[in-house]
C-alpha cells in the first residue's frame, strides 16, 4: 500500500475493483451524477446544508459510549460502541440518504427510487423523500417484506410506495435488479438512492463519503476520551456502508486495525451464508467488479443470513480492495453466534442492537478477552434491533431459549 490512500481513481476503480458496469442507457446519467457530486462536495453551500441536516435532523454527532459492563464481561480490551442506532430512523443509513437527497434536489430530480433489504435504507429513503416532498418508490424482496413487516409499515406511513419483488429469493439482490430496471426506464426524472457502498461509480465513493462522518467523529471522540486513536475498529459488512463509514478516516492510520465482519449464516463451508470475501470470488454485478458469491458457471448464488440487512451476495468494491491489499481483515460470524451476542448486548448494556450489528459484537466478544486491558476497541453499532423482533422471537422459540 502506498503511504497515502487515495482510491478510487477517476474511473471509479479501487485497484481492479469498482468501475461502471452498466447498460449504456445509464452511462450518461452516471457521468452526470459524478460531475454533480464532484461539484457538490467542493461547494461550501452544499456542505453547510449537509452539516445542518446531519446535526438538527439526524441528531449527530452520535455518542461514543464506553461499554463498561461488556468490557467487564469480556475481561480484556476496553470496548466502545459508536452509537449509530441513536440516529433518526434508527440506523446509519440516514447519513447517506440525507446527502443523496440534497444532491437529487440540486440536480432537479423529482422522483426517488431505492432498494432495501432489512428495510432500514428504505425507511431512511422514505424519510428524506417525505422531508423534501418527493415521491418515493422502494423495491423490496418479498421474503424481506415478510420478515420485516414493521419497516414496511413505517415506509408506507412515510408516504412511500413499497413494491414487492418476487424474483430470485426475494431479497436485496433481486430488489436491486428491479430498482435498476426502474431507473433504466425512468432516467429523465428519477434519482436512484443506492443504500450501500456498491453500484457503479460514483456510488461506492459517494456513499462512503456521506458515511465517513461516523469515522471522523469516532476519531475525534476517542482522542477526547483517551488522548489517542483506537487500536481496533470493528464493523459488520453486508454491502458494507457502515463499515466503510467508520473505516475510511482510519485507512492512513496504519496502527489502527480494521476488522470487517461478514455474515457466515450456517457456516462459510455450507451453501447458506453471505460472506462474499471469505467465500466468494471476484466478478461483475450491479455495476461494479467486486467479490461475489457465484457458482462454477459465474451465476450468482443467493446469499443467506439471519439478518436481512446482510443478505447480499456481493460487497462494496472498496472492501474487496482493502481485503486484497490487506489493509482490513475480514472474518465471518454465524447466525447462532450473532444471536448470542445480540442477547448478551441486550442483557449487559440495555441496548437492543440490530442483528447486523450483533455480528460485529460477536467478533468483539471473541477477540476482546484475549487482548490486553489497554487495547481500545470500537465497534460500530450500526442500527437498533426493533425491526428484528419477529426474527428474534422465532429464533428463540425454535431454539427453546
Amino acid at each position, binding site marked *: 500500500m502506498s503511504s497515502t490512500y487515495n482510491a478510487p481513481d477517476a474511473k471509479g476503480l479501487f485497484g481492479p475493483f469498482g468501475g461502471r*458496469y452498466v447498460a*449504456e*442507457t445509464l452511462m450518461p446519467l452516471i457521468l452526470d451524477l459524478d460531475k454533480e457530486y464532484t461539484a457538490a462536495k467542493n461547494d461550501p453551500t452544499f456542505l453547510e446544508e449537509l452539516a445542518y441536516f446531519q446535526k438538527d435532523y439526524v441528531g449527530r454527532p452520535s455518542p461514543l459510549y464506553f461499554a463498561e459492563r461488556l468490557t467487564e464481561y469480556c475481561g480484556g480490551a476496553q470496548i466502545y460502541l459508536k452509537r449509530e442506532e441513536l440516529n433518526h430512523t434508527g440506523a446509519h443509513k440516514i447519513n447517506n440518504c440525507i446527502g443523496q437527497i440534497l444532491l437529487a434536489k440540486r440536480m432537479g430530480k423529482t422522483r426517488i427510487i431505492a432498494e432495501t433489504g432489512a428495510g432500514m435504507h428504505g425507511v431512511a429513503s422514505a424519510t428524506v423523500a417525505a422531508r423534501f416532498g418527493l415521491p418515493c418508490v422502494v423495491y423490496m424482496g418479498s421474503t424481506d417484506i415478510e420478515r420485516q413487516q414493521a419497516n414496511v409499515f413505517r415506509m408506507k406511513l412515510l408516504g412511500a410506495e413499497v413494491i414487492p419483488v418476487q424474483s430470485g429469493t426475494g431479497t436485496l439482490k433481486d430488489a436491486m435488479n428491479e430498482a435498476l430496471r426502474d431507473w*433504466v426506464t425512468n432516467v429523465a426524472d428519477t434519482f436512484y438512492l443506492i443504500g450501500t457502498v456498491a453500484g457503479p461509480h460514483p456510488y461506492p465513493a459517494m456513499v462512503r463519503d456521506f458515511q465517513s462522518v461516523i469515522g471522523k467523529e469516532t476519531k475525534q471522540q476517542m482522542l477526547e476520551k483517551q488522548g489517542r486513536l483506537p487500536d481496533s475498529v470493528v464493523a459488520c459488512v453486508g454491502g458494507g456502508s457502515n463499515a466503510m463509514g467508520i473505516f475510511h478516516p482510519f485507512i492512513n492510520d496504519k496502527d489502527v486495525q480494521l476488522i470487517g465482519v461478514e455474515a457466515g449464516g450456517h457456516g462459510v463451508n455450507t451453501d447458506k451464508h453471505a460472506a462474499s470475501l471469505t467465500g466468494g470470488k471476484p*466478478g461483475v454485478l*450491479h455495476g461494479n467488479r467486486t467479490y461475489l458469491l457465484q457458482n462454477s458457471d*459465474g*451465476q*450468482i448464488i443467493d446469499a443467506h443470513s439471519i439478518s436481512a440487512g446482510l443478505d447480499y451476495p456481493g460487497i462494496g468494491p472498496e472492501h474487496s480492495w482493502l481485503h486484497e491489499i490487506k489493509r482490513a481483515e475480514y472474518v465471518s460470524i454465524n447466525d447462532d453466534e450473532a444471536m448470542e451476542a445480540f442477547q448478551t448486548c441486550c442483557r449487559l448494556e440495555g441496548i437492543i442492537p440490530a442483528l447486523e450489528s450483533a455480528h460485529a459484537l460477536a467478533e468483539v466478544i471473541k477477540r476482546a478477552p484475549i487482548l490486553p486491558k489497554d487495547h481500545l476497541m470500537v465497534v460500530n453499532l450500526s442500527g437498533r434491533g426493533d425491526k428484528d423482533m419477529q426474527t428474534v422471537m422465532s429464533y428463540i422459540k425454535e431454539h427453546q431459549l
Partner: protein
Amino acid sequence: MSRIKNCFAKLKQQNQTALVTFLTAGDPDYQTSLSLLQQLPSAGADIVELGMPFTDPMADGPTIQKASLRALANGQNLAKTLEMVTAFRQQNQTTPIVLMGYFNPIHHYGVERFSKDAANAGVDGLIIVDLPAEHDADLCTPAQAVGIDFIRLTTPTTDDKRLPQALNNSSGFVYYVSVAGITGAGSATEEQITEAMSRLHRHTALPICVGFGIKTPEQATAIAKLADGVVVGSALVSQIEQAASKEQAVDAVLKLCNELSTAVKQLKK
C-alpha cells in the same frame, strides 16, 4: 469478409433490411433450443442473437428474465452455449451468430479462453449489456483481436456528445435500443426513430439495427423502412413461454419468425 459484413452487403444489394431474431440459449432446454436455432435461418432470420443466460439480467424485462431461469434450471451454461454454436456451424456457415448477455459468466469463464473458444465455435459478434465503452479493455479488445465483432448498444440517452465515445471500437453493426427501458417494454414512435437514425448515421458508417418493443409484423415493417435491421426478442421468447409443449414452442417461434420475415422482406428500399 466477416459473416456479419457479408450479410449486410448481400442485403444492401437486394435493397432489403435484416431481420435479427433473439432467443435465449437453452430455453426451454438444450435440444429444443438447438433445433430452433438450426431452423431460424430458413424461417427468415438473417442474423441470430443468442442470449447467454444469467441469473441477474438487470436490463431485461420479465419475459427474457424467465427464459434465462428456464435455461439455467435445465443446466445451460456458457460452455453449452458455445457447444450449441459449434453444432449450428456444422450445418450453417453463413448466418451470423451474435451472443448477447452480461459480463459475469464470461469473466468467470476467463476472457482469453472465452474469446478463443467463441471464435473457434463460430461466434461472429458479442453484445454485452453491462460493458460500456469505458470497459473496452475487459472484453472488447480481446474479442476483436480474435476476429469477433463487438456490437455496441446506443440508446435515446446517448446524445451527440457521448456517441463518439459510445461507438469507439464498435464493429459489426450498431444496436439502437429505441426506448430507454427494459426489453419487451414500450416502443418508440417512427418520428423518434427517424431522428435517431439520422443522428447515428452522422457518427457511424456501420449498419444500424433497431430493437426493443418490436412485437408484431406491422411494427417490424414500420421499423424496416428506417433501419438496416430489425431486432425482435421478447415476442419470440414469449412464444416459448406460452406454448403447451416443446413441439408447439418450436412451431410458434418459427411461424412468428416467418411472419416477421415476410413483413420485413416485402419492403424494397
